[in-house]
């Protein structure tokens, strides 16, 4: 029987196989599913035909400790087909572990701690600091998926009495809007109501995300 024991995982960036010229010119963005629509729109609008997008499930955010290895696996799987791979994730609650994986795999990720930071612009987000401490952020994606990713995943559909344990220290919902969409505005306002919080809308667009994608070679 063949020995199926795997050797210890090396931390050395893996060198990809020799690629065809065509493959060498292609870049894959491995991104969070929460950014799929937005990254896709940047690629389409700017005619960035050398970029491909592969998204991992947005639900990974419920277990951020699993994000780094999921990204590593996707990066390694892409090596044979793409000249370059970049990562469309912020730190996303991985506490620096995603950066470690990116360094080990020799890939770059979009800077910033969270998607709501790079949507706001990382500098602006940092400057706001404690002023926004009691804000619960929504993006277009989170407004669309609010009931699934917030209400259901926190169990508030089954146990609404837990609401204040989760959100009692927050004061307002801040909707960081990527687009102008009256339907999403209404849904975001309703989300704030469900959480018992005040509501504020900020039109931020794609912030630093657009620049990151358009600069990818």
């Amino acid at each position: 029987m063949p020995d199926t024991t795997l050797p210890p995982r090396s931390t050395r960036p893996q060198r990809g196989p020799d690629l065809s010229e065509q493959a060498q010119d292609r870049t894959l963005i491995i991104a969070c599913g929460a950014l799929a629509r937005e990254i896709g729109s940047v690629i389409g609008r700017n005619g960035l035909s050398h970029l491909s997008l592969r998204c991992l499930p947005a639900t990974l955010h419920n277990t951020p400790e699993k994000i780094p290895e999921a990204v590593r696996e996707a990066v390694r799987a892409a090596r044979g087909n793409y000249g370059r791979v970049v990562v469309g994730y912020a730190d996303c609650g991985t506490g620096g572990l995603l950066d470690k994986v990116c360094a080990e795999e020799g890939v770059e990720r979009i800077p910033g701690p969270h998607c709501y930071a790079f949507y706001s612009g990382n500098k602006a987000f940092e400057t706001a600091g404690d002023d926004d401490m009691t804000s619960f952020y929504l993006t277009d994606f989170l407004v669309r998926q609010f009931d699934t990713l917030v209400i259901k995943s926190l169990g508030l559909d089954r146990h609404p009495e837990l609401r204040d344990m989760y959100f009692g220290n927050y004061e307002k919902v801040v909707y960081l809007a990527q687009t102008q969409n009256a339907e999403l505005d209404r849904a975001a306002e309703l989300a704030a109501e469900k959480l018992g919080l005040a509501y504020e809308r900020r039109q931020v667009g794609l912030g630093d995300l657009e620049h990151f994608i358009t600069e990818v070679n």
Partner: protein
Amino acid sequence: MADEDEDIVLSELDDAELVQQMHDDLYDGLKEEIEEAVNILLERGWAPYDILTQALVEGMRIVGIDFRDGILFVPEVLLSANAMKAGMFILRPLLVETGAPKVGKMVIGTVKGDIHDIGKNLVGMMMEGAGFEVIDLGINNPVENYLDALEEHKPEILGMSALLTTTMPYMKVVVDTMKEKGIRDDYIVMVGGAPLNEEFADAVGADAYCRDAAVTVEMAKELIARRHNQLGSSD
């Protein structure tokens, strides 16, 4: 054959069955049932400390294991915690009266810029259940709050919590300030929070990274015992 849906009358259970039922009720987050069962055991002459440890803490230990193993999730753990809190509310004044054993003292708080306290509250409750006196500083604590509390309460342990990647580095500010003031080694520093890890705890100069409330309790006991041994051997 007994009807499985038949209501269980807690007062009709013997002590062992009742304690077992309390573990199940804690698991299911049944606050009122826990309150009722605590009162029944008190009426039967149980010592508050025994109810706390054998029924509540043991029940939450089981909840902690199933949370760690991915069988229970945060909402269920919060319901269990609520049920335990209700039981503790009845027992707390009685524990003070009866002079239950104290294992040590902990000052705990969420760091500056961070308002998240679910994990911290769970840790505080489990530590209290394990016999620690817990001084909870709440959320958004600048370094001064921690230092003042250390000075005032003289605990063995300082616990810091953070949920955000952007706020967790503040733990280093606290530890570095303690070093500057020459008091770092007077305390056991324990840190926790979703984005933290062992490596981060080492980097900020903490004594321990605590993955969850159950781990925190075990580690706190171990570190305090180790500390006592060190003090003993230096005599």
